[in-house]
């Protein structure tokens, strides 16, 4: 037993409005993920490949250094992600805090968030949906550096002609997610 009660600290900090970034981990089928939220909503998800320290440091400098591990604050999104990975959920209801996405990046990511489960788009189509048909490369960039993978489903965006394109979680992971959504996977 540890004398340090993090749950109580996070609860009181949240109550007082001084818990600016809460984070927790989620066990995904392809490895552990980190999820982080502000009082406004989900702000960051990260694959295991990104080191936790780096992600937390980034959140600390871009949002606020008031960062605490507080799984209870992320119960909703953790449950939704579990259900999604089990093939039991096709849409995320959890609110999103878009503050890490500005300008065109934000438009492209919001357009991505609107792609329905089980469907795919090309980077070109995403650029059009984001209101800048010429910005195909920028749309690719917006996906490559998506701060909220899985929930903002950048895995649903492919290269024209059907090539997988890239993926922050690795191409194997992208293929796994597309298989999951196409119903190909036996769960």
């Amino acid at each position, binding site marked *: *037993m*540890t*004398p*340090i*009660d*993090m749950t*109580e*600290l996070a609860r*009181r*900090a949240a109550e*007082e409005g*001084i*818990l600016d*970034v809460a*984070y927790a981990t989620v066990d995904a089928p392809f490895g552990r993920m980190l999820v982080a939220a502000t009082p406004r909503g989900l702000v960051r998800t990260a694959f295991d490949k990104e080191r936790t*320290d780096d992600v*937390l*440091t980034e*959140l*600390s*400098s871009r949002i*606020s*250094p*008031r*960062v*605490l*591990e507080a799984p209870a604050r992320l119960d909703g999104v953790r449950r939704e992600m579990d259900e999604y990975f089990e093939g039991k959920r096709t849409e995320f209801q959890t609110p999103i805090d878009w503050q890490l996405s500005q300008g065109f990046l934000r438009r492209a990511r919001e357009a991505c968030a609107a792609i329905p489960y089980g469907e795919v788009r090309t980077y070109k189509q995403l650029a059009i949906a984001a209101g800048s048909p010429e910005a195909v490369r920028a749309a690719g960039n917006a996906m490559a550096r998506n701060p909220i993978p899985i929930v903002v489903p950048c895995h649903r965006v492919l290269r024209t002609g059907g090539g997988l394109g890239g993926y922050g979680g690795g191409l194997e992971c992208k293929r796994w997610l597309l298989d999951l959504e196409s119903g190909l996977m036996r769960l």
Partner: protein
Amino acid sequence: MRLPPFQTLIDLHGREVHRYLAACVGPIDADDCWQETMLAALRAYPGLRDDRNLRGWLLRIAARKVLDSHRAARRRPVPVADVPDRGFESPPPSDSALWRAVRRLPEKQRAAVALRFAADLDYATIGDVIDCSEAAARQNVRAGLAGVRREWIR
């Protein structure tokens, strides 16, 4: 300034702060004091202008909470008997008769002894925390130990 995520401070120094608090106020009140210390630190954290000694900064806040706790204790009725064991991994130093003697020392000596032996700080850092020179910190530890010894021999 780029401050580390607050959770990192807790991971690095949280236990040490708790040990210091347990030495100063006893194992029961230490949990409350720890929460108060961390909340106060979290409140002030974004405004911090100097990140060179975050450990000393946390312990300084803890030292203030110890003072608050002692003031509150003086207003409280006489405490009951002795504290029950609460299943720590290893018995905290705070639970022995020796540490109870430490808690009866004058404010500065108690803080200095606890910082030296429960939080394992060097004298310069102790001076930082209790707001005196390194030499005075050493003197406070020495006087505190002498005080405990006198009570021990009696």
